């Protein structure tokens, strides 16, 4: 009995902080999304905001853009991270740890600004292209910022997330994979066979878990698309923010509905991640 009380007391501060500031805030956002805001005279809860948002072409454009950017960022990051980890697993742990930790630690805004100065039409890439005689004027260089394909946003995410996934892969490769691989080699398996039948099954659960985390993050992140995205369509978090900033408070339920939908989608992905992580923990 005393033990249970002790656990409860130990947990109380953290659960309290997250309960009030996170879960409480989410709850208020949900209530407001239902159109219940007595302060501005909205007292009839309903699903109008959701109906309005889901029928809105702007929202659907934003949703597709968001799915596209986070899907492509996650896919590219995952493939590059697996390749990098496979290539790097025999090199000195210390050096590669520093190289991989750096992008993880650097704030997104710094990464976005740096990437922008590389790929802009007057950026490092364009200057190199001009030096090689490939282009004459800055406008000859393809527009990679504020562009239709969100190249700048995706590159920033790839730069930030490849190291994260690669570290996860490196950690799982350190385990049984190399021993099993040696066995497979002794038995005459080729490089591709060793990857496909031995290494891939070992690393794939943690690769999928890390990718889910990256997808959830890029789906709900605000800074990078706010800085490097074009003005229409915007990614969902930017759209939610813009609606929230509307002076007309009648737009508030719609803003909150977008937010709740973002939270719902990322929450579903997160639940998948946690299931996988738990299964991994049980296995390992």
């Amino acid at each position: 009995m005393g033990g249970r009380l002790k656990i409860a007391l130990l947990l109380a501060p953290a659960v309290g902080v997250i309960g009030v500031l996170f879960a409480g805030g989410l709850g208020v956002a949900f209530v407001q999304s239902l159109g219940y805001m007595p302060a501005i005279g909205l007292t009839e809860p309903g699903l109008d905001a959701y109906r309005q948002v889901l029928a809105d072409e702007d929202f659907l454009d934003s949703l597709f853009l968001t799915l596209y950017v986070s899907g492509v960022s996650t896919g590219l990051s995952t493939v590059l991270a697996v390749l990098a980890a496979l290539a790097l697993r025999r090199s000195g742990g210390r050096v590669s740890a520093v190289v991989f930790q750096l992008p993880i630690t650097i704030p997104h805004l710094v990464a976005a600004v740096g990437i922008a100065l590389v790929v802009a039409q007057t950026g490092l890439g364009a200057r190199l292209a001009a030096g090689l005689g490939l282009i004459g004027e800055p406008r000859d260089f393809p527009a990679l910022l504020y562009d239709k394909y969100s190249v700048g946003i995706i590159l920033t995410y790839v730069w930030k997330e490849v190291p994260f996934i690669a570290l996860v892969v490196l950690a799982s490769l350190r385990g049984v994979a190399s021993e099993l691989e040696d066995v497979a080699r002794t038995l005459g398996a080729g490089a591709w066979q060793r990857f496909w039948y031995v290494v891939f099954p070992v690393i794939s659960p943690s690769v999928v878990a890390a990718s889910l985390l990256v997808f959830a993050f890029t789906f709900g992140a605000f800074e990078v698309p706010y800085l490097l995205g074009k003005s229409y369509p915007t990614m969902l978090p930017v759209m939610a923010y813009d609606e929230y900033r509307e002076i007309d408070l009648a737009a508030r339920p719609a803003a909150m509905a977008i937010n709740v939908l973002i939270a719902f989608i990322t929450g579903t992905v997160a639940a998948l991640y946690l299931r996988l992580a738990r299964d991994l923990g049980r296995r390992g």
Partner: protein
Amino acid sequence: MGKGARRSDAVLVVVAALVALPFVPLVLWAFAGEWRFPDLLPTAWSLRGMSHLFEPGGGVLGAAFNSLVIGAATAAASVAVGLPAGMAIGGYEWRFKGVVVFFILLPILVPPLASTMGVHVTFIRLGLADTLPGVFLVHLVPTVPYTALILAGVFAERTGELEEAARTLGASPWQAFMRVTLPGVLPGVAVAGLFAFLISWGQYVLTLLIGGGNVVTLPMLLFSAASGNDPVITSALALAFALPAILTLVLALRVLKPGQRTNLIGPGKV
């Protein structure tokens, strides 16, 4: 094997170059005096960017100070809140642990944009909106999960034998905690505090929403510079903004043993 190692080193050089790539224009621009298209390097150098950072009344020092104060307060409070939670999660077995861990993890997994907009109204009513304490409070949302998790890992590695020995020798539970447990987990506490500081330092949207433009931190200045048209000032600010992250990384790598919990920082939470 030798050939594989050499190829591995070559790949490492390429990866390191790609990691360094965004910093190349940042460093060049920060010290550029004149750098016209299509010159590959600046044709004149200047300290205009650097002096902008330290200009009295230029706003950068004040913003850096705000970031520092909020970061330090957030780190201290997150550790204070995360330490007991970490002890409960890592040190003991109890029912519904999975559910509670999931709950504490939630703010890492679900972006805190919705929840922050939700608490905004209450913050306005309580007079916390547009204030430093209000910003500090919302910065606890993304940091507490990390400190709790890092410290749970630290407590999970402890067997409790030393505490038992201390109790056998007549120490009270409180003495055993202060004299044995706390010194043992101190390196973990330092790492957790550093990560919390870093996450708070990197926050942009939470500060923007709750601070409402009245609480100016370094990322606010960087953002408005980046939306403008002066790459010298933007790059100088970006380097200043990245500096504590780099210093913290160096420190954290010294405290952490190689290969230990390197993947604790989630994707871009910082």
